[in-house]
């Protein structure tokens, strides 16, 4: 089958519910645009589809993607073109509050390649997606806004719940090196208790809400240095407790006994500074948020290096 012929078959199939068009007829129109008028194939296809949409009096959204399973199974991270019909297998990572009545659902989908925003419209009358559930979504359309891609569900989108759970990859990085310093604001800290604030208090003051009764928390802002680059990482309370063996209650007790919260930071310094770590997590600004922390207690393999060095 020629390239044009396969486009023609697909288009004819897409319109089979709405119009009586044959693949031959479509091919002829494509052929005319491509051969006579020197229109690129993509543009020709677009123009032919548009004219049939007009003829049928329907919107692009209502159009199928060329029959069942006609689309390519795509990883979210591979989506880099506007208005493509694709099938994805993804987990609903997060649902957000729709800001308009036209939107039925909006949120984040995730698969092993990454995460991407999705939208489903009220007019499409689709079943609701549930947070944390993995689906095979057939016939979704890609969309681009200012370089950011998203997918739109539509009337023709097929939704099938998957038995397996899709592993969601994030844009995490891994840094490795010696933990050479802890920055101020590490150890036992107080956070603003106002809802959705959680800012760290400076001398009992929140930069947004002023003087408040803070809530204790643990965290570490560490500097990991590999000899050529410096990385800043944040351990949340869970990571801090796991790496230092000091739990929040114990830290509060230490601070109370010493009448000084900085004792906790000092104690933690002794536990962490000077050791080697591998830290993995997403980056936020200049920080890596530690989701996984491993102390590198095995000596590195010197043998390979030795072989290389002797041949230098």
């Amino acid at each position, binding site marked *: 089958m020629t390239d044009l012929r396969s486009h023609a078959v697909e288009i004819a199939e897409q319109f089979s519910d709405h119009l009586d068009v044959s693949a031959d007829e479509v091919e002829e129109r494509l052929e005319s645009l491509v051969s006579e008028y020197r229109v690129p194939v993509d543009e020709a296809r677009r123009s032919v589809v548009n004219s049939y949409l007009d003829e049928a009096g329907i919107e692009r959204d209502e159009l199928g993607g060329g029959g069942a399973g006609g689309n390519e199974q795509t990883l979210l991270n591979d989506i880099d073109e506007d208005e493509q019909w694709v099938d994805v297998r993804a987990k609903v990572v997060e649902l957000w509050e729709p800001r308009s009545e036209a939107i039925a659902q909006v949120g984040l989908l995730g698969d092993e390649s990454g995460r991407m925003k999705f939208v489903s419209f009220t007019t499409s009358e689709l079943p609701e997606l549930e947070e944390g559930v993995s689906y095979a979504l057939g016939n979704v359309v890609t969309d681009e806004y200012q370089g950011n891609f998203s997918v739109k569900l539509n009337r023709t989108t097929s939704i099938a719940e998957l038995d397996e759970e899709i592993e969601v990859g994030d844009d995490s990085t891994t840094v490795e090196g010696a933990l050479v310093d802890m920055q101020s604001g590490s150890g036992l800290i107080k956070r603003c208790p106002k809802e959705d604030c959680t800012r760290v208090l400076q001398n009992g003051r929140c930069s947004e809400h002023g003087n408040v009764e803070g809530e204790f928390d643990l965290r570490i802002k560490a500097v990991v240095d590999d*000899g050529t680059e410096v990385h800043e990482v944040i351990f949340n309370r869970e990571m801090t407790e796991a790496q230092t063996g000091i739990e929040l209650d114990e830290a509060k007790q230490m601070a109370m006994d010493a009448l000084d919260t900085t004792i906790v930071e000092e104690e933690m310094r002794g536990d962490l500074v000077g050791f080697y770590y591998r830290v993995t997590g997403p980056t936020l600004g200049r920080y890596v948020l530690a989701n996984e922390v491993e102390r590198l207690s095995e000596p590195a393999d010197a043998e390979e290096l030795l072989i290389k060095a002797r041949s230098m």
Partner: protein
Amino acid sequence: MSANDIPTREVARRVFAQEFNDAGYTFKESDDERAPVYVLLPTGERANRIFLVGTLTEKEDVGEDNEYWRGRIVDPTGTFFVYAGQYQPEAASTLRDLDAPAYVAVVGKPRTYETDDGTINVSVRPESITEVDAATRDRWVTETAEQTLDRIDAFDDDGNEYARMAREHYDLDTDEYKRVAIAALESLEQADELNA
């Protein structure tokens, strides 16, 4: 200074004691009074901070009126001298409390001073001293050997500014640092065989 005006933190170089103690030449890269001072490593790199792990073998309070602790920290190639006084209270108190011998990790700034006979001594003013374990020490030796060899490898590259400076200011042979880096790695291998 980076574009967004946050001063970037100086990286902590990995260097063996022998090379570090040879690094007597210091320089600044701007006229600003607060501009960082670098020592020039003979293998062609600048260092404003170093990270070292070794065995604390001796410590002594050499201060007259105030406490001033001197620690000798040994790696496979030589000895680092670390001085901590009242302006490094945490490091000083760690040195006071530690019993030698112990494996320690030091993050610190290179300092040089000229003695009466004109030789230049290089030492470390610690930002932190912490007690670590043998595995961390071995990892540091491997890492430091690797980074030393990488510097030597790049020494003859076109546009290696610090190698050019090193040729200008030192009369030292990088082969010697390669030799000690290899010897340091071999010492780890031998220790492995003894343990096996």
